[in-house]
């Protein structure tokens, strides 16, 4: 493996996932994110003690973070290439439709529906990757067109197969996924922590994506393709296949996100996932993943999703209106990114002086 990838062997494994070693620790955006999240939690819980209420706030918040972390990872999978996936919302909607369809028509068990959603997501993602590699058209345009197409297709599918807007089917176990937490399951006197049952699904995805980009050959080659497609091609990486795989992974994660949201909502509807586009960029970008490709931060994405969810829940409790919420979230994104720039410039200056 090292023979085929001399560059990877030369650089320490952290170099591509974390910031270059020359930057000091405070230039790491994840440290800043943790500090901001902690500060906000203290602020919100001192203003509204109910922010720390387990059933009202913490449990639903974890369920939201689970969904939006996966949504962020879906975007991250193609940001690794320097590509974008504007069809994240509709890929999630199509996958959720597929799951709803098999639950409704075939009465399959819960996990089989999940597999169907993942499969459909991966397929549609791979299709978009194939279009991009075979035509050489910008990923932005391809996924934009795909989003248009899927937007129409998904509502047509619901109109044909669900008599309107939603499947009302509830496969066995869906309600416990939606309402139960681990504290409902006890072994003797010892009960689990108050963590909703959807969280482990997201955790598996987070760990798997992290390992994929850090340890697996395909993942590392995707990152190399993202940092320099020419260099990657010259070092014998099958660039086209890696692009298709990255888009397939993005679709797969869209499928998971769509399925998780359907579980949280308790319904498979045509409008599912339409709010995904902004968060899909918000989480990885706040977490320090660049749009240029070649570097990803999985942990940062999770923290980015956590930050936006904390802000959302906190402001909700403080009875902010949706419009004020939007203004604040947009401003947070701008301020965070500007600070990131400042931090970077400062760190580089310091690095050269030292």
């Amino acid at each position, binding site marked *: 493996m090292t023979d085929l990838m001399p560059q990877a062997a030369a650089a320490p494994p952290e170099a591509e996932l974390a910031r270059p070693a020359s930057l000091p620790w405070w230039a790491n955006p994840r440290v800043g994110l943790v500090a901001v999240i902690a500060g906000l939690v203290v602020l919100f819980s001192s203003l509204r003690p109910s922010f720390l209420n387990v059933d009202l706030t913490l449990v639903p918040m974890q369920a939201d973070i689970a969904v939006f972390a996966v949504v962020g990872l879906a975007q991250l999978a193609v940001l690794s290439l320097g590509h974008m996936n504007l069809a994240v919302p509709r890929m999630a909607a199509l996958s959720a439709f597929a799951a709803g369809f098999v639950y409704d028509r075939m009465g399959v068990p819960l996990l089989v529906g999940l597999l169907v959603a993942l499969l459909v997501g991966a397929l549609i993602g791979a299709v978009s990757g194939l279009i991009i590699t075979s035509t050489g058209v*910008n990923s932005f345009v391809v996924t934009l*067109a795909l989003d*248009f*197409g899927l937007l129409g297709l998904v509502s047509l599918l619901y109109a044909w197969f669900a008599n309107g807007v939603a499947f009302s089917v509830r496969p066995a176990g869906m309600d416990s996924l939606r309402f139960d937490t681990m504290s409902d399951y006890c072994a003797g006197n010892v009960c689990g922590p108050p963590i909703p049952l959807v969280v482990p699904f997201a955790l598996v995805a987070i760990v798997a994506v992290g390992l994929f980009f850090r340890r697996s050959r395909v993942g590392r080659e995707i990152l190399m393709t993202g940092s320099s497609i020419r260099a990657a091609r010259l070092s014998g990486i099958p660039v086209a296949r890696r692009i298709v795989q990255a888009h397939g992974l993005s679709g797969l994660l869209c499928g998971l996100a769509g399925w998780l949201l359907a579980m949280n909502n308790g319904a498979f509807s045509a409008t599912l996932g339409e709010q995904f586009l902004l968060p899909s960029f918000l989480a990885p970008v706040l977490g320090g993943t660049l749009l240029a490709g070649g570097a990803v931060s999985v942990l940062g994405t999770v923290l980015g999703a956590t930050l936006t969810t904390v802000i959302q829940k906190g402001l909700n409790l403080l009875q902010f209106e949706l419009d004020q919420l939007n203004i*604040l979230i*947009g401003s947070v994104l701008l301020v965070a990114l500007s600070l990131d720039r400042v931090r970077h410039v400062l760190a580089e200056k310091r690095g050269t002086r030292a």
Partner: protein
Amino acid sequence: MSAPTISRTTPRVRVTTELVLAVLAGLAIVVLTITTNGNLLQPGTIRAVLQFLAVPMVIGLSQMVVLAVGQMNLSVGVLTGLTAVVAASLMVDQGLSPWLAVPAALLVGGLAGLANGLLVVLTRINGFIVTLATMTIISGLRYGVNGTGTYQNYSPGLVDFGQSSLLGIPVVFLLAVLVALVVAWFFRRSVVGRNMLASGGNPIAAMLSGISNDRSVVLAHTLSGLLAGVAGVMVLMMSGSVNASIGDDLLLPSFAAPIIGGVALVGGVVSVLGTSLAALIVRLVDVAQAQYNINPRWVDLVVGGVVLGAVLLSQSRDRKDDA
């Protein structure tokens, strides 16, 4: 230095794309006319087609202006909504006359665009992300003006004017054509416009020939915001009532028109005629949906296909040109 190069290479590509689009639009009109037993050519139908073509055209141009310098503007749709709501609020809540409210709306659009441009240049953050953030902010501001409430009867005079026709052609459409002509002149003849194209086509060459790329980017975003303001005013003129949901469905069409019209995302190329023709084709898909009573969702599916098809076509032609 770089301006002649651009004018030598681009018109060939542009003319063929425009020709293909014109033929396509012509064919669509003939087919629609025949299959609807001439209904399409009734004066009332023509008026409706053209009236609702105005906003997509201008919003497409608004996106095209930033694409020209290799940028994107995700805030065009919500900005259209914001300017319409602000103007209506000024007339209803502040009692201003339309003569003041309309320029104020354009000013809001231009200033929002200027803010986008300055943010991109000063922070060096990717324009996609900057406008994603400002889109969120503007969408909040849009609801902040009047919540989900609707403004009505803000100015009967303005609405009468907006719904009137000149020689059977809606006034708003004539306005859109005027805007398109000005934009076309701007990129073809004015030094500032040529400089913007040069910045978009090859920033390094532009910089070496003494053009400020930062100025081009700021200017492009400002113009884009201004055009979104124009679209907002058009919405205000055409319908007697406006609310904060205006603009939600404009973002994707804003990209569809220039992309189908042959404007590349890498910058340096514009096609006002192509963008306008593409907007017309998308409008004809809408008309077909209405005439044949098709599920409106087919429109999105077809438009997605058309966008992809158009890009594939121009791509394969470019490859042949290269070979």
